[in-house]
């Protein structure tokens, strides 16, 4: 029981940190969450993390909220998922609420904007290193070397030429799921023959 409460508290603090330091939206946040949850705390395994991302992407709502709820549930049940979600949302809520009170001054303050521009550079470095790490750790067979570049090119083309391309990522994920299932079915058959 004591351990569970401690875990919940840790979930809250870790997602508070994620909420406070993630810029750049959905997938960018996933990089940071992967860094904190899988690598540093080892709360869930790398393979489970992919499962979490697939679910977060194919359900409604902001991806990072979905990830927080799901990871929280996996680590410490419903209480864990509540605390993780509240932790994630709280920094945005507090920061934007304060900003909204002084909105006109805020958007004109050059020091705030300068500091934020600097932070943005740091965030991009963080994201880039996380993606590289993620790709390095994966098993890279023929499927990876085909699927990764094709999906990447499709995503980039769509984000250049279409303003609303959110559905394309969902389609790519569904195609990936189908490939995965077919592959499992085929290798099952092979095992049976032997």
């Amino acid at each position, binding site marked *: 029981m004591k351990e569970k409460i401690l875990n919940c508290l840790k979930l809250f603090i870790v997602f508070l*940190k994620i909420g406070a330091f993630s810029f750049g939206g959905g997938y960018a946040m996933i990089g940071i969450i992967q860094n904190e949850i899988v690598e540093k705390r080892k709360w869930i395994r790398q393979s489970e993390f992919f499962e979490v991302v697939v679910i977060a992407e194919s359900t409604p709502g902001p*991806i990072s909220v979905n990830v927080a709820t799901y990871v929280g549930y996996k680590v410490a049940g419903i209480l864990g998922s509540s605390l993780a979600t509240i932790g994630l*949302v709280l920094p945005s809520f507090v920061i934007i609420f304060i900003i909204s009170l002084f909105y006109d001054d805020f958007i004109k303050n050059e020091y705030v904007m300068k500091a934020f521009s600097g932070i*943005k550079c740091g965030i991009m470095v963080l994201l880039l290193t996380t993606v590289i790490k993620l790709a390095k750790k994966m098993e890279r067979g023929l499927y990876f070397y085909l699927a990764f570049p094709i999906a990447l090119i499709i995503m980039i083309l769509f984000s250049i030429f279409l303003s609303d391309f959110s*559905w394309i990522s969902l389609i790519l994920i569904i195609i990936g799921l189908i490939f995965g299932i077919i592959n499992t079915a085929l290798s099952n058959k092979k095992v049976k023959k032997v």
Partner: protein
Amino acid sequence: MIFLELFGVFFLIGLFTFGGGYAMIPLIESQVVSRGWISTDALYDFIAVSEVTPGPFAINIATFIGSSQQGFLGALCATLGVVLPSFIVILLLATILRKFSKSKYLSGAIDGVKPIIISLISSTVIMLMVKTFFFGGSSLQSPFVIDRTTIALFLIIFGFVLIYKKVFKKDFNTIGMLIISAIFGLIVF
């Protein structure tokens, strides 16, 4: 009842946007702009603010609209509304999926998606960099300008992190790195 309306509108927005983030802008335009809660121009100004403040766009816009309409309580209602659908759907799914967690097909399907997920994250990072370095950060429709200061600062931080890792065999503290970035930002921009 305005509080209920704020909650309801953002509940719908949370329920019907997949992929989150800017995918919800069309819905926000049709639901929020049409109610006169924000003008289209102010919405796009706020997107820029949201870029430089942390957290998911959905939460930021819900808190902002709620607060500008009805203060703290309004912000609370709108934010709760936008988060709740995700929270409920994910909890339901998580309890169902727990029963299938040993399934070979589930883990096979996940294996099939892994390279796709990495490409989704990579494309976001690449687009973020392209927009920030060459289009003033907002969108590809903005005029093309090479932002030398930003590129230089990015390369300096990137180089520093790589060298730190080579020398000390561990990652540089994330928050420390971001604080240093903010200080650099104040100096160079």
